[in-house]
C-alpha cells in the first residue's frame, strides 16, 4: 500500500497548517479537549477574541496561550505536562469532575491524534499491539467515548506511506464508531454512515491520488 503518487506541486499542509485548519472549524463557545502532541497546537490558531474553552484532563478549564518567557507557572500544566496559562473565567476541578465533564455530555469536541481511523468511525490511537509492553492509555478512551464529537488530526499516511484511513483498524481500538471527522495533511474527511466522505482536499491533489493513499473507499462531496 506504499504511496507512489508524485508529490511535486502538492500543497501538503504542514503541522501548523493542519492545526489551523481544525481551529477554523471550532466555533465560539465550544468546550474542547485537545489531545497530546499535534492536536495541542490547535489552540494557538484560534483567534484570541473567539472564546473557545479548552479543557484539560487534569482539571484545568479554559486554558489560555502558552506562558510568556519568565511568566511560567509550574503549578499550571496541561495533560501533556506542558506549562500553560488560565484565561480570565477559567477554573480548576478535580480529576473526577474533569472526567464527569468529559463523559457527561458537556464536552463539545475532542481533537485527538490517531494511528488509524476506520470508515465506520472506529478509532485506534493508544496501543500498537495487543501484547504491547506497558501500554499507556491515559484519557484517550474516556475522551473518545465521552465527547459529543471526536475529530481526528493526523498525517494521512505513515512515514512509509501506509494509509491511516482504513476499512478496519488493525491496531487495538480506543473506542468503536466515535470519530466524525478527520483532518489530515491532505484533506478534510467526514465519517458518514456510508463511509468516508471527502469535504476538501489541498490544492494540487487529485481524487485518484488521495484514494491511492487511503485504504478505504472515498466518496467526494
Amino acid at each position: 500500500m506504499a504511496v507512489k503518487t508524485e508529490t511535486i506541486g502538492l500543497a501538503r499542509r504542514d503541522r501548523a497548517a493542519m492545526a489551523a485548519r481544525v481551529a477554523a472549524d471550532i466555533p465560539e463557545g465550544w468546550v474542547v479537549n485537545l489531545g497530546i502532541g499535534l492536536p495541542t497546537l490547535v489552540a494557538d490558531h484560534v483567534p484570541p477574541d473567539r472564546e473557545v474553552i479548552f479543557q484539560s484532563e487534569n482539571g484545568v478549564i479554559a486554558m489560555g496561550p502558552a506562558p510568556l518567557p519568565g511568566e511560567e507557572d509550574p503549578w499550571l500544566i496541561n495533560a501533556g505536562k506542558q506549562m500553560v496559562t488560565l484565561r480570565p473565567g477559567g477554573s480548576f476541578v478535580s480529576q473526577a469532575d474533569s472526567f464527569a465533564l468529559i463523559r457527561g455530555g458537556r464536552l463539545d469536541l475532542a481533537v485527538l491524534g490517531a494511528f488509524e481511523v476506520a470508515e465506520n468511525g472506529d478509532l485506534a490511537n493508544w496501543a500498537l499491539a495487543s501484547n504491547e509492553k506497558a501500554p499507556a492509555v491515559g484519557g484517550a478512551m474516556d475522551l473518545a467515548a465521552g465527547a459529543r464529537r471526536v475529530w481526528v488530526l493526523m498525517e494521512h499516511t505513515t512515514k512509509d506511506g501506509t494509509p491511516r484511513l482504513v476499512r478496519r483498524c488493525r491496531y487495538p481500538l480506543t473506542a468503536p464508531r466515535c470519530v466524525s471527522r478527520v483532518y489530515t495533511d491532505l484533506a478534510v474527511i467526514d465519517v458518514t454512515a456510508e463511509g468516508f466522505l471527502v469535504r476538501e482536499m489541498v490544492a494540487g491533489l487529485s481524487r485518484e491520488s488521495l484514494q491511492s493513499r487511503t485504504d478505504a473507499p472515498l466518496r467526494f462531496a
Partner: protein
Amino acid sequence: MIDKIVASAREAVEPVADGMTVLIGGFGQVGTPNHLIEALCEKGVRDLVVVSNNAGTGTHGLARLMAEGRVRKVICSYPRSRGSVVLEELYREGRIELEIVPQGTLAERLRAAGAGIPAFYTPTAAGTLLAEGKETRIFGGRACVLEHALPGDVALIEAWEADRWGNLTFRKSGRNFNPVMAMAARLTIAQVHHVVPLGTLDPERIVTPGVFVDRVVHIPYGSPRLT
C-alpha cells in the same frame, strides 16, 4: 463573546417545553430558584416531570406549578414537609405521580447523569420497600441496588455569584443540589444574586464551572424566606 446572561426569568425559561424533565435545585427554601419556577408557571408548560428534593410548600414556587396542573410526576426524597398541602392533595386525588427516592440515591443518580455514568450500585435501600422490583446484587458480601442515572432536559438552579460565562459560586447551605443538577441537565438555567465581570471570581472558588451552565438571570431577591 460568550454571554449567557439573559434579561429576565421569562426569557431564561423560554426553552422549557411540554413533557420535559425539569430538575429544580434547593433544599427547603435555601437555594431554590423560585423566580424561575414562577416564570415557568406564567409560561404555561404542561406535563412536566419535576425532580426536586422537596415537593413545594405553601402556594408559591413548585407548589404553584403543581397546583396549576403543570406537573405530571414528582421525583423527590421528602415530599411531606410543613405546608406541603398542594402535593398531598394532588397525590390523594390521584392527580399526580410520585416517585420516592432516598436522598443520597437521588443526589447520586443526578451526579451519575452529569458524569456520563448510566447506572451504579448502592447499598442504600437494599432490603427495603424502595428496592422492590429493582435489581439487587451482592458486592463484598453486601446487597446493593442497581440505580439509574437521572438526567434532566432542563435544570433550574439558584446561585450566589455568576459571570457571563456562567461560572457560579453558592452561598453556604444554598449549594445543596444546585451544582449536581447543573451537571445533570442538557440545559441549565441559573437564577443568581450577583453578576460580576469575567475574571473576577477566584478560579479556586468557582464551584460550578460555566461549562455546565447555559443561561443566567440576575435576580437579587434577598435572603430565603424560611417560613
